[in-house]
């Protein structure tokens, strides 16, 4: 055993010194390889964290949302719809939500305005999310102008701001009083945007939704499960633009790696020929090539993964921001909570390290089984 370890150690020593002899070429390969692993691992980390965080954050979302549909579009819902839902067995509470969107022409951002039941919030006052405060450069005590549905301009004073830690759910949020909301959007008294229903037993959610659909045929029911599933699927990396872009990079790398690994340069062929001539066996040459492939792919894999970790969790996936941000002016600033999935990391490992290592061995085996004299020529 000791002899075997010693042999491997010498082989690794030789391989590393052989790699250092062609350091520029190998450094370029490691750099590109690392970049590919970095991009893929960034997507894996990002998707994993988003999925975990959305599940943790939205677990307290309403069990059922009831929207009124008119001609296939959702419309404001009469408050008279509240009572029949409340009487459904299993429903613990129903709340009429008043919320809407407001486009701010000053900065070109869209805000979500929502009525808060906070008794401390007086008419004329608002509570704003971190993003609103950032893009409008306003803080507690400042005012923001709003144009009502009649064209009248009103000033609402910021009472305070929501914590930046909650940016992921509240960055574009403006909490207003019911009175100000109705004045702004002209939603008549007796109407709300939708109904938020809480259900005692989670297993009864589909039954309650069915009963509500029967009682109120012009409504659409959105279950919490559907909300959670939406967010589970949103960043499904098979369906994203990122992977489409990455697939091009991957293919380019595949061609590069295959070309580098499968076609030995004349220098490498000569090296194998010399090794064979001085008494190396085919298995030794294969082992050397195996260690060479391992050294390159392992180093690239580890560096790529660690860079991806820094990118996603320390730099808040800054490279993906333009894609995620789209045309929106207001993009939340948040730091993701690390969530490493061993399974996905091992899949990435086997998809990146193993193919390259195997690809390096085949041409080396071809060269090593040929006559040393022919190979050296």
């Amino acid at each position, binding site marked *: 055993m000791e002899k075997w370890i010693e042999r491997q150690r010498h082989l690794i020593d030789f391989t590393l010194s052989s790699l250092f002899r062609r350091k520029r070429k190998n450094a370029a390969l490691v750099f590109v390889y690392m970049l590919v692993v970095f991009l893929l691992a960034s997507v894996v980390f990002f998707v994993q964290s988003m999925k975990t965080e959305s599940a943790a954050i939205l677990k307290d*979302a*309403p069990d059922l*949302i009831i929207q009124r549909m008119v001609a*296939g579009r959702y419309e404001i819902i009469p408050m008279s719809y509240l009572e029949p839902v409340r009487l459904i067995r299993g429903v613990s509470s129903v709340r009429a939500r008043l919320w809407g969107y407001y486009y701010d022409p000053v900065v070109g951002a869209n805000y*979500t305005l929502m009525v808060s039941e906070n008794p401390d919030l007086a008419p004329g006052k608002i509570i704003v999310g971190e993003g609103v405060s950032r893009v409008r450069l306003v803080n507690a005590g400042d005012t923001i102008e709003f144009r009502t549905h009649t064209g009248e301009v009103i000033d609402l004073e910021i009472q305070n701001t929501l914590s930046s830690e909650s940016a992921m*759910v509240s960055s574009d949020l403006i909490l207003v009083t019911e009175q100000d909301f109705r004045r702004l959007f002209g939603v008549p008294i007796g109407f709300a945007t939708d109904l938020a229903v809480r259900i005692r037993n989670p297993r009864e959610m589909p039954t309650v939704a069915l009963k509500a659909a029967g009682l109120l045929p012009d409504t659409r029911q959105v279950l919490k499960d*559907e909300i959670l599933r*939406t967010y589970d699927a949103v960043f499904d990396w098979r369906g994203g633009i990122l992977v489409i872009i990455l697939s091009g990079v991957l293919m380019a790398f595949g061609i590069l790696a295959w070309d580098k690994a499968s076609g030995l340069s004349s220098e490498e062929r000569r090296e194998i020929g010399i090794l064979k001539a001085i008494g190396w066996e085919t298995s030794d040459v294969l082992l050397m090539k195996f260690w060479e492939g391992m050294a390159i792919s392992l180093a690239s894999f580890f560096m790529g993964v660690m860079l991806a970790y820094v990118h996603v969790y320390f730099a808040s996936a800054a490279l993906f921001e333009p894609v995620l941000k789209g*045309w929106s002016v207001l993009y939340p600033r948040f730091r993701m909570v*690390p969530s490493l999935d061993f399974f996905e990391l091992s899949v990435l490992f086997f998809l990146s390290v193993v193919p390259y290592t195997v690809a390096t061995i085949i041409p080396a085996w071809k060269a090593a089984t040929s006559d040393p004299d022919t190979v050296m020529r």
Partner: protein
Amino acid sequence: MNIMLLALMFTDASVGERAGAASLRANADLVGKLDLTDLCLFTEASYTRHLSLADLHTPFQNGPMSLEHFPSGSLAIPPAAIRKVNGKVD
């Protein structure tokens, strides 16, 4: 060296996960208190801001042949049920 850094990464992840639990809890509380339904990720259009509450036919809201034109719309895939229904048409 690499393995040491990798071990450090896992340690940092586990510490970060524990530290982040409090902020996740605070966010979940806010969601519960205000009855929020969606994450504030894409604010460019109403149907990307509230993905779970958007109209089912949202990408076609401007006309039957209108294509999705908001960049983040291409990130959000349609619900599985809709993909199945339209499978043969797509």
